[in-house]
């Protein structure tokens, strides 16, 4: 069984191995034990409400209960830009027009801004190569939306994700080479690493503050603004299916897009419903295709658990939960759990269930 739960100190080694495998793309999780340990501590404090709500950083582990191993993680940053300044470029338009000259020229322009400050970010998604199948990535990513909605007062109404921008096989980013590098004599990979270890705002402060007129940049740099790395394209599609859209902000280093959505509009949240748990003694074949499964969350802030069940377990008022699943979710009969389809597309039985019960 695969279960989402808050990260623990004991996950450090698994996390380190995953971070090593992820390579340079994952800025927020550098393969550095000390930093990872610090992140785990911060997450633990957040789950235990020992830190201020706005300083919250939540990391969820995907545990393979058979292997007793953490095989993936995902995260939520409650509010960005409070401890250090959060920078983006906004892709906007400057128009130069003159009726007398018959001139009407639109110039795409990058404006440095801190617009995302105080907004909740979903981040740090990482899944071990061995488990990239059967909707595990969806579970890792989408379980967060249930958490964000159930504990909305800890988060902003709007949620965003920064998508990794384009870089080549050698880790060279066309935008960095054309822009950042001219102001900051450093390789993209190094700047990216420094960002990951918490120096992003230092670097951002060295970046140009005045608007950048895109025609002044070379074509290959212009072409990647707002585009994602090939490896990130599936993640982008997944978020788009949830209702996330490009909001015009891009990363100041690699030009990767920022996508955002209001949490109440996110598909997982809209298509979810609550049911009382009914522990079932019948054994259930849990191994069904991902489109026939639903996510089940125990709705606990501190001991958040999510796993999946076949859709046929859903009854008009209850959900039948096999004993071992109930144990993993730390729920008993009568507890209220939240259900949401794991996969998007097609007719969701949950929807018909919801309309029937309405």
């Amino acid at each position: 069984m695969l279960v989402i739960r808050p990260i623990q100190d004991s996950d450090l080694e698994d996390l380190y191995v995953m971070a090593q495998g992820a390579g340079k793309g994952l800025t927020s999780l550098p393969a550095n034990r000390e930093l990872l340990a610090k992140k785990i501590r911060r997450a633990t404090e957040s789950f235990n409400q020992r830190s201020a709500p706005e300083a919250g950083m939540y990391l969820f582990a995907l545990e393979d209960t058979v292997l007793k191993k953490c095989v993936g993680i995902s995260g939520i940053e409650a509010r960005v830009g409070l401890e250090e300044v959060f920078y983006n470029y906004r892709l906007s338009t400057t128009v130069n027009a003159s009726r007398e000259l018959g001139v009407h020229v639109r110039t795409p322009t990058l404006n440095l801004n801190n617009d995302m400050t105080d907004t909740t970010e979903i981040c740090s998604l990482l899944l071990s190569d061995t488990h990239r199948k059967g909707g595990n990535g969806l579970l890792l990513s989408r379980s967060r939306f249930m958490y964000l909605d159930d504990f909305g007062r800890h988060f902003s109404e709007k949620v965003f994700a920064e998508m990794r921008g384009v870089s080549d096989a050698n880790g060279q980013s066309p935008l960095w080479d054309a822009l950042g590098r001219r102001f900051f004599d450093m390789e993209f990979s190094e700047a990216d690493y420094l960002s990951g270890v918490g120096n992003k705002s230092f670097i951002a402060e060295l970046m140009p503050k005045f608007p950048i007129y895109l025609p002044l940049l070379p074509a290959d740099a212009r072409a990647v603004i707002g585009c994602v790395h090939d490896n990130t394209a599936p993640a982008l599609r997944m978020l788009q299916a949830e209702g996330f859209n490009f909001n015009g902000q891009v990363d100041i280093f690699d030009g990767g897009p920022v996508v955002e959505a209001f949490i109440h509009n996110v598909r997982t949240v809209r298509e979810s419903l609550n049911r009382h748990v009914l522990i079932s003694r019948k054994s259930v074949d849990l191994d069904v295709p991902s489109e026939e499964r639903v996510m089940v969350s125990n709705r606990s802030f501190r001991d958040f658990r999510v796993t999946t069940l076949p859709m046929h377990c859903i009854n008009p008022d209850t959900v039948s939960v096999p004993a071992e699943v109930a144990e993993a979710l730390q729920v008993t009969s009568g507890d209220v759990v939240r259900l949401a389809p794991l996969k998007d597309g097609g007719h969701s039985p949950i929807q018909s269930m919801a309309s029937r019960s309405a």
Partner: protein
Amino acid sequence: MWVVRPAQQEDLSDIVELASVLSARVSSTVPKDKGKLAEKIDYSKRSLAGDQDVKGTERMLFVLVNTATGKVQGTAGIDARAGNGQPFYNYRQDALIHASHELKVSRRVEVLYPSHALTDRTLLCSLMIAPELRGTDAFELLSRSRLLFVARQRAMFANSMVVEVQGVQTESGSVPFWDSLGRHFFNMDFATADSYSGMLSKTFIAELMPPNPIYVDLLSEAAQAALGQPHDLARKTFELLEREGFQSGAYVDIFDGGPVLEARTDMLKTIVSSLRKTVRSEEDVDGDSYLAGAGEGLHFRCGLVTLDEGLDETVKMTRANQKLLACAQGDELLVAPL
């Protein structure tokens, strides 16, 4: 002999011919269009005549005349107030240090800021000369005669002066600075923008340029190399102005990136070294060649003449030269060494 005098409507065809002869871009403050040029000459005449309507925004145009043929071989202008009542646009060359103690880095970033700081200074402009005269005494006469005019009618002018020197242009006529910057915002080549600049006003065009500072590092290499550099054909002008006491470096033209020179009016060599003398007629004058300016307003004449120092602040001058400078014995003359 060469004489500089205020432009007249009769000079119109000579000036247009001169403009067409010059293959390189003609300074945009001399309109190529006959109608516009006629207006400019008219405005100059009104300015020199002390017309109250143009007070404060006087614009003068002088011509270099070959006295033997009567042909105009050059032009030179003065705008009493740069911008002529409108903002006068330039880029100010500045630098920012992007530094971080934490990361132990420090980097100098060159920036061009749009600026109006030079508005209302006195502007030397519209310099145009027949190619064969470039670098000769006639060229020096044409350029410096304006300063003698300023010295004569000092109250009309500001305490500091500026000159825009034409920037770098390739053989094929393209302007690297424009191609790397302005072109993106206008979608037209330099020649087209320049002709609009002449037809409407430079301010009109400048106002369409982006209002934000420009990072020099983002310009093309050719544009960066051209920044603050004079056109090859304007190098003589540039050097002459530097000898006169003008300094470049702080400002550049927003279109072609050419240097904008600045000086304190009262520190300029011609003005500092000019002396007021009284004309005394002499049949035969044996002396040195001087830059001599006579008359005021529409009667201003300036020439290179042989003078000999006399007693009591007088200079000896032949009657023939007096005729050329439209002066007579007893008139005041402003004299500066060549």
